[in-house]
C-alpha cells in the first residue's frame, strides 16, 4: 500500500445558527460529524453525495480553509502514531469520559505537534503543498487581474517550485548577485513569466492568453486557468470542488482528461468532490459516499459501482440515468428529501428513508467497519445485505439485463 498523504481523524464541523434579538446561538448545523478519512499518495478519491451533505465542507477542512470544531489533520503521518490516535479517538467517542490517562495524554500531545490545525509551523509547510479548484470559474477568478497575474500570484506568495526554480533562476541569479536589487527583481519577474508561459501552454491555451482578463474566456477555458493557478506551485494535493458541474459534457471530458494527464506528469493526489457519479466512475480510483455529514461507504470505484452495500449508495447508483435506451434496470426510488442537517435523525441518519430500516437503526449509530478488503460500510445490516441478492443492485444488474436481451 502507498504512503498516507493526508489523514483526518475525528473531524467535526458544526456551524452555529444565530437567532433571536441578541444573536445568540440557537442551534448547530452538523455539517461534518466525526469523520475519519485517509488519502494515500498519488490516488484520486471521489467524494460523492447529495447537495447539503457536507462534501464541500469536508474538502475545505482537509486543506485547512476552515477551522474544525474538533479533530486532527495529519500530513504525511507516522503510521504508528496515526493508528494510535485513531484507536484512542474511537475509544473516547464510545466512553464519553473526559479524564485521560498519562499515556493517552502523551499520544494526544504528540499528535498535536504534528497536527496542521494546531501547529503553525506545520501549517506553513502544509499550505505550500495543497491547492483547490473551485466550482464556479466565473467567481473564482478575480475579474480585475490579468491571467498572468492570476497564475503568478501563488508563485509570489509561496516561492517558485524547486525544479522550476532551478530551470529558470539559478544560473542567472548567481551571475548577477552583486548587481543592484532592481535588476535582480527584473530577472525574477522574467523567470516567473517564462514559467507561466510554460504552464499555460500545458493547459492547452497559448501565450497571448496571458494578457487577457477572465471575462474574455469561455467556461471551459476559465476552468483551465483555475487549474493552471492550482498547479503552478506544484502541490502534492489538490481538492477539486465540483470542477466540471458548470460545464457542458463535451468540455467536461476535455477538463477531466487534462487533469488525468497532469496527475500522470506530476504525481498529484486529487480529492474529487462531485455529485456527478458518472464522472467519478471515469475519473477516480476510490470513492467515499457521504450522507448528512457522515461517511456511509468507502471502497474502490469498481467495487462500489458493482457491489454497493449501503442502501443509500444502492439508491444513489440506481438513480443515475444511463444514456442508453436499451438498458432498463430496477430503480430504487427514495421517498422524501434529505433531512435537515441541523436536526439530524437519531441513530443511523439514513433510517428515515431506508427500506431495510429496523427499530435498531433509530436507536444506535452504526460505525464504519471493513466488510471486505478495502470496502468499508456503516450499516447495521451490511452483512445481511451482502448475502442477499440486492447487493448486486449496482451496475452488475444492468449488464446482466442487457446481455439477456
Amino acid at each position, binding site marked *: 500500500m502507498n504512503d498516507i498523504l493526508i489523514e483526518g481523524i475525528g473531524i467535526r464541523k458544526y456551524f452555529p445558527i444565530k437567532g433571536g434579538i441578541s444573536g445568540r446561538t440557537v442551534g448547530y448545523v452538523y455539517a461534518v460529524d466525526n469523520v475519519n478519512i485517509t488519502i494515500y499518495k498519488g490516488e484520486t478519491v471521489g467524494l460523492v453525495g*447529495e447537495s447539503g451533505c457536507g462534501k464541500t465542507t469536508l474538502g475545505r477542512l482537509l486543506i485547512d480553509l476552515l477551522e474544525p470544531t474538533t479533530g486532527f489533520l495529519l500530513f504525511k503521518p507516522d503510521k504508528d502514531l496515526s493508528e494510535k490516535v485513531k484507536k484512542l479517538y474511537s475509544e473516547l467517542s464510545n466512553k464519553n469520559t473526559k479524564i485521560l490517562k498519562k499515556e493517552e495524554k502523551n499520544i494526544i500531545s504528540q499528535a498535536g505537534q504534528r497536527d496542521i490545525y494546531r501547529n503553525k509551523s506545520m501549517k506553513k509547510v502544509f499550505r505550500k503543498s495543497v491547492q483547490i479548484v473551485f466550482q464556479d470559474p466565473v467567481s473564482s477568478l478575480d475579474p480585475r487581474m490579468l491571467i498572468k497575474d492570476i497564475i503568478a500570484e501563488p508563485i509570489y506568495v509561496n516561492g517558485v517550485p524547486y525544479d522550476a526554480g532551478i530551470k529558470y533562476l539559478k544560473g542567472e541569479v548567481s551571475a548577477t548577485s552583486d548587481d543592484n536589487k532592481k535588476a535582480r527583481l527584473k530577472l525574477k519577474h522574467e523567470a516567473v513569466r517564462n514559467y507561466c508561459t510554460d504552464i499555460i501552454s500545458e493547459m492547452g491555451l497559448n501565450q497571448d492568453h496571458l494578457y487577457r482578463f477572465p471575462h474574455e474566456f469561455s467556461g471551459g477555458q476559465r476552468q483551465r486557468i483555475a487549474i493552471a493557478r492550482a498547479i503552478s506551485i506544484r502541490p502534492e494535493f489538490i481538492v477539486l470542488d465540483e470542477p466540471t458541474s458548470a460545464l457542458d*459534457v463535451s468540455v467536461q*471530458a476535455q477538463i*477531466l*482528461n487534462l487533469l488525468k494527464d497532469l496527475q500522470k506528469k506530476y504525481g498529484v493526489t486529487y480529492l474529487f468532490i462531485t455529485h456527478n457519479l458518472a464522472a467519478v*466512475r471515469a*475519473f477516480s480510483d476510490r470513492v467515499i459516499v457521504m450522507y448528512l455529514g457522515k461517511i456511509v461507504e468507502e471502497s474502490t470505484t469498481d467495487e462500489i459501482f458493482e457491489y454497493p452495500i449501503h442502501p443509500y449508495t444502492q439508491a444513489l447508483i440506481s438513480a443515475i440515468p444511463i444514456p442508453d*435506451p436499451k438498458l432498463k434496470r430496477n430503480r430504487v426510488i427514495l*421517498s422524501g428529501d434529505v433531512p435537515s442537517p441541523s436536526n439530524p435523525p437519531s441513530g443511523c441518519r439514513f433510517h428515515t428513508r431506508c427500506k431495510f430500516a429496523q427499530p435498531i437503526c433509530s436507536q444506535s449509530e452504526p460505525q464504519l467497519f471493513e466488510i471486505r478488503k478495502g470496502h468499508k460500510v456503516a450499516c447495521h445490516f451490511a452483512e445481511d445485505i451482502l448475502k442477499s441478492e440486492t447487493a448486486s443492485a449496482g451496475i452488475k444488474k444492468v449488464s446482466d439485463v442487457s446481455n439477456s436481451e
Partner: protein
Amino acid sequence: MEKVLTVSNLKTQFFIYEGVVKAIDDVSFTLRKGEVLGIVGETGCGKSVTAYSITRLIPDPPGRIISGKIMLGNLNLLKNLDKEAKIIQKKRIKIVRNRKIIRKNDYFLNRIRGKYISMIFQEPMAALNPVYTVEDQIVETLFLHNLTKMLKIIKSSSKHLSELVKFRDQKEISYFFDDDVGEELKKIVSANKGQESILKHLDMLIESSKLYLKKEAKYEKMLIKSIENDKIEEKLLSNISQEEEDQIIKILTKESKKINLIKISKKLKRNTRDPLIIEARREALFLLESVNIPNAYRVLKSYPHELSGGMLQRVVISISLSNNPYVLIADEPTTALDVTVQAQILEILKNLQKNNKTSIILITHDLGVIAEMSDRVAVMYAGNIVESASTDDIFHNPKHPYTIGLLQSIPRIDNPDKKLKTVPGSVPNLINPPSGCRFNPRCPLAFDKCKLEKPPTIEVSDGHTVACHLFSGKEVYNDE
C-alpha cells in the same frame, strides 16, 4: 399519429449592442400526440430559446421571432408576425414595433398559454412567486382556464348534497354517481391518499355546493358562458376559414381583456366565500396529491421559500398540468436537482404522461435523462437541429459527427475503462457564426464544401434526418 404541434423554419434573433445574435436558424420539427420529444444540446445552442419561442415568451426587445410557423392544431401562433414589427436595415438595424398589435396578440395568447401549451421552467424557485402561497398560485391557473369543469362539478355536487353529507358522516364513499362529481370522487378514491384527504375533499365539496345554491342563477349563467367560450376556443384549433378565425380571435381578446389579474389575486388573498375558489382549492389539493407530495394540505398553505427544490419542482409540474395541456414543454426540469430527486421527478412525469397522454417536449443537456424518457430526439447545435431520430437510432446509430462526439464524451457508469473522447473546441459565438455548416470548425470530418454551403436536412432512413454534407438522400421539406 396525429400531429399536435408543428414548428417550421423558425428563426429567432436577438438584437443587441454588439450585433445580431442568430440564436435559432431554421428550426423545424413536429410533435405527435402522446409522444415525448427530447431536445439535447450544449449550453447556448438555442434549446431554451426554441421553447420560449413556442410559448411566445421571448422578451421583446431585445429578442424577436423573425420568421417561421408554429402550428398548434390548425392555428398559426405566429400569424401576425409581420404586423407586430418591421425591421429596417440601412446602416444600423432598427426595429419599429407596433405596440397595439403586440398587446392584442398578448391578450389572445393568454388563452393559449397555460391551457393548451404549458411549461415547466428550469429553476422552480424562480418560477414561483415568493409572496403568494402555493395554493394561490395553483388556484389562479385553474381560475383563468378551467372554469367550466369546476362549475360543472359544483353544479352536480349541489344536486347530491345530502348524499355527500352522508358520506362525510360515514367517513366513507360507498357508491359513485353517474355525473361529474361521481368521476371526481372516483379519481379521489383511486388516488388512495388516505381517509383524511377524502374527508377534506368531501368537506370542500359540501361547502362549495352550499354556497352555490345561494346564488344558483348567477353561476348557471356563468357556466353557460364559459361553455360557449370553450367551444369557440376548440373551434379555433380546428380547420376553419381565415375570416372566421379573425372573428373568433376578436371575441376571445375581448373576453380576456375583461379579466383583471390584480383583482383576482386580491380575491384569492382574502378568504372570500366564493364556491369557485373553494372548488379550485380542492382541485389544487388533488393536483398536489397526484404528484406524490406527502402532507399535501400543509404544503398548500406554505410559501415557496419554505419548500425544498424537489418539492417546488413538483408544485410547478402540478401547476403546468392543471389544465390538461395539449403540449407540455419541460425546460431542463431536473437540472437543479440531485440524482435521487431527479429519479423521483422523472418517475412522476412518466406516469402523468402515460395517464393523461400529454405530448411533452423535454429539453435537457443530460443524455441519460433523454435515453430514459423520450421517444424521439432532436440534437441541436448552434441554433440548428443537426440530427433527429428515434431514441434508439440516436444512441445506437448516430450519423452526424457532432452527435457521435457528444455521445463519446459522456462518462458512463457502466463503462469504466474507456478514456473519454472529446469534441475539440467550444460552441461558436452566434453573433458571427461560422459560414456554411456551423459545426465545421470543430468537425473532424470537415471538407471544403462544409465551409461554403449550409447542409440541407436529409432523410437517411425512415424518420431519421441529418443535416450534414457527408450524407446524400432525399431532402426533407418541412412545409409538407
